[in-house]
């Protein structure tokens, strides 16, 4: 029946229908099989993959930053600790009217305008479920006032975290350094994936040098979150391993005295234990308050520090390079005695001037009328320049260079802090390389009194003096004393590392020079006799006054007439007690007029304080025993 039938044919209709239904069912079966295979693929074959995706959806791994190791001085006084700090945090998805909430917060505690600006910046960037800090470092009164009102402020909370705090403030700021928020560059390098955006990292000084020791290992908190990113429950917590605490070789009391006595002067003090290389004090003034840096320093504050002409951020103890002036003389004395240029009995006449044979240039003594007949003791006691002009010329620059190098001059000190400078130990080789000119005999002459090309850092000087005090034994200077493990509460001492031993053919020379240096203070004609009054210990010292301008140096007692920036630098080195020294000190005071005037009292007080602290009885040393040495 190919033509259209005028009548309905039920049987034919039924046949057509059944055939079509079979076709439809066949297609349906294919579709159902496709669906089934799809489900099979998703739910069984790819199950592990999607299971991981589901886990990644709900599990967030959050770091727990480890508490940083605490810094103590050698006696356990806290130098750097972690204190709780509170910040006001706003959870935006709990707040209907953000502006209204802010107004209400401001009616309870004042909010700084720049914090408000930062808050709005963060609001624009962060996803809505992320809490945004409104005000950092809340004061305790603010915390109290907010805590009372918190139930009226839904979506506002106070978050506590640990903040680095330096209780001594500017005292020792250069030495300790500070921590600050990690920079994006440091975060990108991120060694060992220990750091996150909220980490603090040591930015300077000890905090920077011992970052690995102090930081610890962060913990992990695995939390389950819902689709809004809100915490549902904590799945797993792995506590952080706190950083090691460290005892520094520093004596906080000496450090404080150094800062106090340097006062308004720019300068540096370094005190060292000659038998270990441990730095007992390392001060640089003017200083700054490291606590300002901890939460990220404000730009205006930083600019004020960096624009200051006295450079408070500059660590003079490590990086300040100064002419040693007369403080180089004891080293030269050792050199001439060791090289048999003179004996202790050799005398030279000092007319107040010195002229190199065959030349006309006149080199002046600091005392225009001269010192007359001078032996080595007198030369050191009264700091006779002419004597040392002769010594320098007789010894020659090469032997000076060779003898002084083992004391650490002209080399970067191997201290466990970054940034130490090398200074300059003048030599023809150095001059050719850096100044591009030949060495003249005249250069040798002024090198003999620590002027000319000479440059030393306070640290170098302290270490060198310590080497005389320890009779040729030089130790690697360091500020780490012991490491305290916070987990097992054990303290592991850090052993001293010998750096170099200078051996003299006649070891007695060490004592001779020490005794001559003692005379600088003890002898009524000594340049540092001013600090002898009431001095309880036998100390060895040497003054130095480094010329800044070509002013007449004879009337230094009228120094107050000279503008401060043109006054000479004052240097003083000392160690004590004789005969068994425990401490060596180098003091540099910029524009301090004269070593005896400003630098020596600082050294005296530091040494005395330290020796008293150590319980060393005063007037201990027998004078005669040294005289017997002298007789040999």
């Amino acid at each position, binding site marked *: 029946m190919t033509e259209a039938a005028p009548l*309905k044919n039920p049987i034919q209709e039924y046949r057509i*229908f059944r055939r079509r239904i079979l076709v439809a069912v066949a297609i*349906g079966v294919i579709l*159902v099989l496709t*669906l*089934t295979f799809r489900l099979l693929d998703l739910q069984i074959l790819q199950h592990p993959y999607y299971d991981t995706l589901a886990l990644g959806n*709900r599990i967030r791994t959050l770091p727990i930053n480890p508490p940083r190791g605490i810094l103590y001085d050698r006696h356990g006084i806290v130098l750097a600790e972690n204190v709780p700090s509170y910040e006001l945090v706003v959870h935006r998805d709990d707040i209907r009217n953000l502006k209204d909430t802010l107004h209400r917060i401001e009616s309870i505690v004042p909010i700084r305008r720049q914090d408000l600006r930062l808050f709005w910046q963060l609001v624009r960037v962060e996803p809505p479920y992320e809490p945004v800090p409104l005000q950092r470092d809340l004061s305790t009164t603010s915390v109290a006032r907010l805590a009372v009102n918190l139930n009226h402020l839904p979506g506002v909370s106070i978050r506590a975290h640990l903040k680095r705090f330096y209780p001594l403030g500017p005292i020792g700021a250069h030495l300790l350094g500070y921590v600050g928020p990690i920079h994006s560059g440091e975060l990108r390098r991120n060694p060992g994936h220990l750091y996150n955006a909220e980490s603090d990292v040591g930015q300077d000084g000890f905090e920077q040098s011992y970052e690995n020791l102090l930081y610890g290992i962060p913990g992990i908190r695995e939390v389950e979150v819902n689709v809004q990113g809100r915490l549902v429950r904590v799945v797993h917590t792995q506590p952080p391993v706190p950083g090691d605490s460290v005892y520094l070789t520093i004596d906080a009391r000496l450090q404080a005295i150094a800062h106090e006595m340097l006062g308004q002067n720019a300068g540096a003090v370094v005190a060292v234990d000659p038998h270990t290389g441990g730095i007992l004090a390392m001060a640089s003034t003017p200083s700054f308050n490291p606590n300002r840096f901890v939460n990220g320093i404000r730009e205006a504050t930083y600019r004020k520090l960096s624009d200051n002409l006295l450079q408070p951020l500059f660590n003079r103890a490590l990086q300040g390079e100064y002419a040693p002036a007369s403080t180089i003389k004891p080293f030269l004395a050792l050199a001439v005695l060791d090289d048999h240029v003179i004996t202790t009995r050799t005398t030279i006449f000092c007319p107040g001037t010195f002229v190199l044979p065959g030349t006309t240039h006149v080199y002046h003594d600091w005392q225009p009328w001269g010192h007359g007949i001078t032996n080595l003791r007198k030369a050191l006691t009264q700091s006779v320049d002419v004597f040392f002009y002769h010594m320098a010329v007789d010894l020659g620059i090469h032997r000076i260079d060779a003898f002084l190098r083992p004391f650490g001059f002209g080399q970067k000190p191997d201290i466990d802090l970054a940034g130490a400078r090398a200074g300059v130990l003048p030599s023809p080789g150095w001059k050719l390389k850096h100044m591009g000119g030949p060495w003249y005999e005249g250069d040798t002459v002024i090198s003999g009194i620590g002027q000319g090309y000479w440059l030393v850092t306070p640290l170098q000087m302290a270490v060198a003096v310590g080497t005389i005090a320890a009779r040729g034994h030089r130790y690697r200077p360091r500020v780490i004393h012991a490491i305290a493990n916070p987990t097992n509460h054990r303290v592991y001492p850090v052993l001293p590392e010998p750096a170099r031993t200078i051996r003299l053919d006649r070891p007695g020379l060490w004592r001779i020079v020490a005794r001559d240096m003692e005379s600088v203070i003890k002898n009524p004609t000594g340049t540092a006799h001013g600090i002898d009054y009431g001095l309880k210990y036998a100390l060895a010292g040497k003054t130095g006054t480094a010329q800044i301008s070509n002013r007449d140096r004879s009337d230094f007692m009228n120094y107050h007439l000279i503008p401060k920036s043109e006054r000479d630098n004052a240097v003083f080195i000392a160690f004590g007690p004789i005969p068994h020294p425990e401490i060596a000190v180098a003091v540099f005071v910029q524009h301090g007029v004269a070593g005896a005037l400003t630098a020596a009292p600082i050294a005296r007080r530091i040494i005395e304080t330290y020796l008293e602290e150590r319980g060393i009885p005063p007037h201990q040393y027998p004078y005669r025993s040294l005289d017997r040495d002298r007789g040999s």
Partner: protein
Amino acid sequence: MNDSSAYIRHTPNLNPSLLSRLHIDGPLLLELVLLSAMGLIALFGADHGELELVVRQLIRILLGFAVLVAVAQLPPAYYRLAAPWLYLAALILLIVVLAFGQRSLGAQRWLDLGFVRLQPTELMLLALPLMLTRHLSNHTLPPDWRTVATSLLLIAMPLALILKEPDLGSALLIGVIGIFCLFVSGLNWRYLAIGAVILCAAAPIAWHFMHQYQKERILIFLNPERDPLGAGYHIIQSQIALGSGGLFGQGLLHGSQTQLDFLPESTTDFIFAVIGEQFGFLGALALVMIFLLVIQRTLRSAIRMPDHFGRLWAASMAFITFLYVVVNIGMVSGLLPVVGEPLPLVSFGGSSVVTLMAGFGVVMGLEHHQSTSWNT
């Protein structure tokens, strides 16, 4: 004749049971109850163990079964008589919804009647096949070109209105159902082929007239990672939910995708993913099986119907159910674009439960009434 045996097989039941007296097909009813029950459990799991939605859905389901039983009591002649009026009513409602409907998510689909939010599209989904069934069975089969043309007109009117809403997914469903009615009525293969060619040619033009969000949906379907936090989010999250279910599932009220709200629309369009996550491949397969049983039972009724009206209607019901299942599961498992069609009787939602139940009521009524063919 072997083919006609089914046609004359029907013999009066001399000792009718209660179900039989109520013109209810027992096995089909049982399967529908089972399906609804699974839906309620899934809803319970999707809504974090809250009972509120479950109770509301239960009320709708009970209402649906009441409607089913009520509709089954009507003599078949009523369905025929009701068909044009129902179709007309649905058409008018579609126009009303375009004029006054609630705008949600950029499309006008809902009509708020105070006590219930009516979606005329759902009504048309049954009204159109009923109308076509009447129209086709009134003429000789296979349909001649005149009948085909009038049928196409009947399909085109609601199609255009739904496209205007705009609701591309439902429009496609309406179109496919209409074509299916013509197909099982014996539409010439040649017409089908011509239609397919025209459709392919029209596709680029249709693309041009599509709304941006419709284009976006299709593009997202082709590559969900195109916008993983935006439009592709639904597909990705539902696949994760299904995939993390594994063979046995995470268990009722377990499974992070649902419980922590990573899965969007978990109580409505994406409820199949909830079943997949909580009851695994086996649970999902069981649900599909029950759906297939419903379809099988409905097709069985279709074969046993005494006339083409009954046959065509039962086949339409089976096809509508099948289409919903395939489109929904295809969407949830990422095989089809997100068209926003619910899983019948399982997804939370009012009007679709009642209309579908009414449709099955008609199937039962047609099969169990001792009706004679009206057109012979």
